[in-house]
């Protein structure tokens, strides 16, 4: 089937920063994203898990954006402005998509 080049950007970020990130993405003209829950993890700031937690200080989400390659830079700048002072991981992968008109 006909596929089209795109980028898959996966931003793992603190849950409390999610709305700030998605607002920045929308301002950067990202047309869509998907948010995945995260159960736990580990990094320089130690290990954590959401089990039994009610507080919002710990816990992360993954925001996944599929975008046209030419929009990548704008997106990364927007994402970076939010994660800059915060913990979080941004990973970019080349991908192909169906229905390119959607992006």
């Amino acid at each position: 089937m006909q596929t089209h080049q795109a980028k898959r950007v996966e931003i793992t970020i603190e849950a409390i920063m999610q709305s700030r990130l998605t607002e920045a993405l929308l301002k950067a003209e990202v047309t869509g994203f998907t948010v995945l829950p995260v159960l736990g993890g580990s990094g320089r700031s130690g290990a954590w898990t959401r089990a039994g937690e009610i507080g919002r200080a710990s816990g992360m989400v993954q925001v996944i954006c599929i975008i046209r390659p030419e929009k990548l830079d704008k997106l990364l700048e927007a994402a970076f402005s939010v994660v800059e002072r915060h913990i979080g991981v941004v990973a970019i992968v080349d991908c192909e998509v169906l229905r390119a008109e959607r992006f």
Partner: protein
Amino acid sequence: MDQILSLAATNLLSPIILSFALGLAAALARSDLSVPEAAAKALSIYLLFAIGFKGGVSVSAHGIDAKLGLTLVAGIVLSAVLPLIAFALLNVMTSLSRLDAAAVAAHYGSISIVTFVAATSVLESSGIASEGYMVAVAAAMEAPAILSALWLISRGGGNGQRMDSDLWREILLNGSIVLLVGSFFIGWATGEKGLEEISSFIVAPFKGVLCLFLLDMGLVAGRGLRERSDVLRPGVLAFGILMPVIGSLCGLGAGLLLGLSSGGVALMMVLSASASYIAVPAAMRVALPEANPSIYLTLSLGVTFPFNLTLGIPLYVALATAMTGA
């Protein structure tokens, strides 16, 4: 003294405390026992709704006390001032950075609603009445401490503060404040009649739900201690036990000045003594992301919360009843 000891003993052998201890022990022993996140949140929604509602009903029954306004103001002032004391104390007792000290300080000005709930349940068992509006005071004391901490940082030339309007909204319209205040007004509006309709939901099973919630708190606190107890240097640990006592004394002073009932004074002490572990940590992650969350989370949930739950509350209640001559 006798009363304190007997109250403490009764308290320590209540299903509530033992449930907390069970959770703590299970987590420290690395059992895989865990309460699902959604269930823990559901329990907390239940507790906030019930405690707010009952507070409102009590206000509707006894009428508004002339002291309501003053008590709210006192609560706000305490919440704003206690961080300054905590900050000074931390500078003396620990080697925490200015940033970490301010972040910790914010927690001690604010309050822990579960500690409050546990205290009301002790008061109830002991048949000591308190002002229903103390729930509203609890809500009012959540946020001011955050501003004090940010002011401490900005005064020190830190660039931590980012009080954008989003953060303001998050702090003031924080889910637990909204639910507590909202159900308080619902209880107030519907009064005894409303309570009757739903009391077999919010009154009868309340203590049992609290047990399960404290089991979960024990699990979370134990996991935190297991993984992050290295941040608990002696000075920091001592602060986590000294500060609630100091806070409680400030609360005692305020409560006596206001002329609250003995239960009201005890609750004022509990609020001042308790440290936030929901609203403030989240605000700190947004506003002071460079502060180390391990320190404030472990101190608040792993040290001060268990201290208040087991020894603090009976102590505060005993002191309050002694000082009000009840």
